[in-house]
């Protein structure tokens, strides 16, 4: 791995690109060398800021020629160290490529550059009553290119599915510097294998996404936001069973434990809407079909003892306050401690069995440790955060979790789950990929990587080693 960029490469960049194209300023290297994970120390050699697809293409051709490893970089809000540059790589930031074209109102699509910030896309489309329904806590920083490269999930998956469902066309620059236009703005295109899908979720290991045509959908109707207090995870699942059959169109069914709430209160100084503390909380967002029916259903939750307390936002401001409790969790865990994150998914039908066995694993592997559990339970997705105990060295903590993870992943495999629901693999989870992918699949992934990137310059070492 090149720690120092070849002289000839630097000369070629200086000759062929604008003066502000590349930076090697230490503060910037620190900043652009990492994502939201804090396991690896950032150590890129330089950061490049292209403004056009042509610049990306010419840069990659040079990188390929001089064997310079490249880490593509968006909003750097990833949680699997997919955008971490810890081994002298060149970081390729797409942030200057944030142009958005006018919304195409006949086809409900919009063409944007990879660096467009998710929330900016939302604002851009909302004027026309449309939205790109990819939505998560980091929407103010995350970028479209990164969302697509990681097939991001988020808080509205239960209604809208993953990022993959909302991408019509991609412009991708290959390791050799070729520009591919994949699928354009076509809804239907049955002309052989869909290469666009190859790049969605590839975490920048197969090509660099520079532009995308996004599929849009009408903004949802009036959403009611509820927060329920329930005693435990089993009760969260019982309530979910009811919510599935309720006269409501669910757009979010999220849960978090009291441990998460305590960290949120510590870090963000937010308050709980309830007087009495509870073991678990459920945040539900839904569109009611019939007010009287919904009311009857809500009333029955209390009568049947399915919830111990509950509130419903009385204004958009209150809805935002309730959502903040859920959306601040990730940030608050990292700000108040060191979490070891697992992001697993299970078939929804197996969640109950998995959760009851998971407690046994925690008891055995992490006796007395703080475990902050939250997630998109409606999608079968659990975020399991093992918090570093006070006073334990970081290295010891990481070694301990590394030893304990296989037990957890074995349980995930047993119940037909995935070891990474939406965070991706990056560097953090690659040792465990085999828990979710068969040897034949892994070999196929390697064959693809070798075919598309023979010099292994695109985000090398992420997902798997060739």
């Amino acid at each position, binding site marked *: 791995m090149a720690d120092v960029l070849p002289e000839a490469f630097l000369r070629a960049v200086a000759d062929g690109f604008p003066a502000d194209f590349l930076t090697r300023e230490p503060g910037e290297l620190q900043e652009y060398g990492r994502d939201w994970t804090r396991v690896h120390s950032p150590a890129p050699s330089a950061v490049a800021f292209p403004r056009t697809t042509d610049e990306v293409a010419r840069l990659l051709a040079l990188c390929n020629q001089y064997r310079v490893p490249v880490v593509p970089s968006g909003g750097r809000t990833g949680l699997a160290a997919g955008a971490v540059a810890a081994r002298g790589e060149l970081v390729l930031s797409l942030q200057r490529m944030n142009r958005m074209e006018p919304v195409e109102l006949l086809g409900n699509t919009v063409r944007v550059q990879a660096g467009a910030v998710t929330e900016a896309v939302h604002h851009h489309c909302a004027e026309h009553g449309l939205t790109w329904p990819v939505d998560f806590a980091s929407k103010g920083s995350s970028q479209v290119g990164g969302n697509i490269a990681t097939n991001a999930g988020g808080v509205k998956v239960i209604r809208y599915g993953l990022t993959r469902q909302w991408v019509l066309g991609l412009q991708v620059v290959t390791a050799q510097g070729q520009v591919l236009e994949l699928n354009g703005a076509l809804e239907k295109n049955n002309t052989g294998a869909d290469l666009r899908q190859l790049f969605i979720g590839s975490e920048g290991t197969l090509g660099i996404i520079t532009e995308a045509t996004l599929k849009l959908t009408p903004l949802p109707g009036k959403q009611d936001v*509820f927060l329920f207090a329930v005693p435990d995870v089993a009760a969260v699942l019982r309530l979910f069973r009811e919510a599935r059959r309720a006269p409501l169109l669910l757009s979010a069914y999220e849960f978090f434990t009291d441990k998460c709430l305590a960290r949120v209160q510590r870090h963000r*100084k937010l*308050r709980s*809407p*309830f007087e009495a503390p509870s073991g678990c909380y459920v945040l539900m967002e839904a569109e009611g079909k019939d007010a009287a029916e919904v*009311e009857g259903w*809500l*009333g029955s*939750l*209390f009568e049947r003892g399915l*919830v111990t*307390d*509950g*509130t*419903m936002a*009385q*204004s*958009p*401001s*209150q809805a*935002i306050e309730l959502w903040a409790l859920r959306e601040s969790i990730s940030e608050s865990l990292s700000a108040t401690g060191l979490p070891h994150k697992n992001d697993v998914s299970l078939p929804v039908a197996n969640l109950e069995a998995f959760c009851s066995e998971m407690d046994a694993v925690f008891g055995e592997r992490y006796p007395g440790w703080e475990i902050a559990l939250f997630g998109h339970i409606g999608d079968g997705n659990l975020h399991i955060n093992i918090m570093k105990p006070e006073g334990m060295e970081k290295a010891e903590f990481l070694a301990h979790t590394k030893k304990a993870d296989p037990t957890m992943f074995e349980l995930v495999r047993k119940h037909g789950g995935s070891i990474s629901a939406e965070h991706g693999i990056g560097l953090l989870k690659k040792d465990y990929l085999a828990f979710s992918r068969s040897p034949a699949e892994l070999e196929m992934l390697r064959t693809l990587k070798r075919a598309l990137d023979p010099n292994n310059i695109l985000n090398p070492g992420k997902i798997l080693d060739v």
Partner: protein
Amino acid sequence: MKILVTAKRVEDPESKIKVKPDGSGIVQEGLKYKINPFDEIGVEEGLRLVAKHGGEVVVVSIGGKEVQEQLRHALAMGATRAVWVNHTGPLDQMGVAGLLQKVAEKEKPDLVILGKQAIDDDQNQVGQYLAEFLGWGQATFASKVESLESEQEKNKVPALQMGADNKSVRVVREVDNGLATLECALPAVVTTDLRLNLPRYASLPGIMKAKSKPIEELTPAKLSVDVTPKVQVLKMASPPPRKAGIKVPDVATLVDKLRNEAKVV
């Protein structure tokens, strides 16, 4: 003890608020609404007083039938019943105070609590007019020292305290150079400042119960109040847009700009 609290319907600050091109008002389309946050604080304070001294909180709002949403919100928080003065069309602060005066004379509360101002027009006048019209004492800007109700704050004496005989109220209020404590004979008018309390969330059972709580409908005619505005809004305009910030290369340039351009040092 009976406490009358106002619940004005105002634009939710989460909505995008735009002035109409002709300056005749703001664009209503797509706007969302909520209870005026200062009034919400008033409802909370009323509920706390009633929890301690017994009695009821009666909530009042003026406007078209949509203000029932804000009345229901206050009822869901725990108010006992509501009064709705059905009126659409322009209304100035004296019109509002005149209507509230009649409602107060009808309801005969021990205390009227209002937000010190509404976040739409930020007038800060109705509480004062109302006290004058009623001939009652007034204590404006009731407040506590710290915001966010920290543990210490909860243990402190509340800003509104009833006298032992329930015939007076002591009010801590925020003034320019600190805190002033007033004592008013009841009935009185109190207006709330931001740091008085943190209003509770309405519980789901409360929200459902609120749907069957009574809302009495009144009109300016029924109250015999002439609400013809004496104050007329001639034109609304957005403040000039802020200029974009600039980056300065070093401290010397910054100091120079502060001294010679901004003239602040």
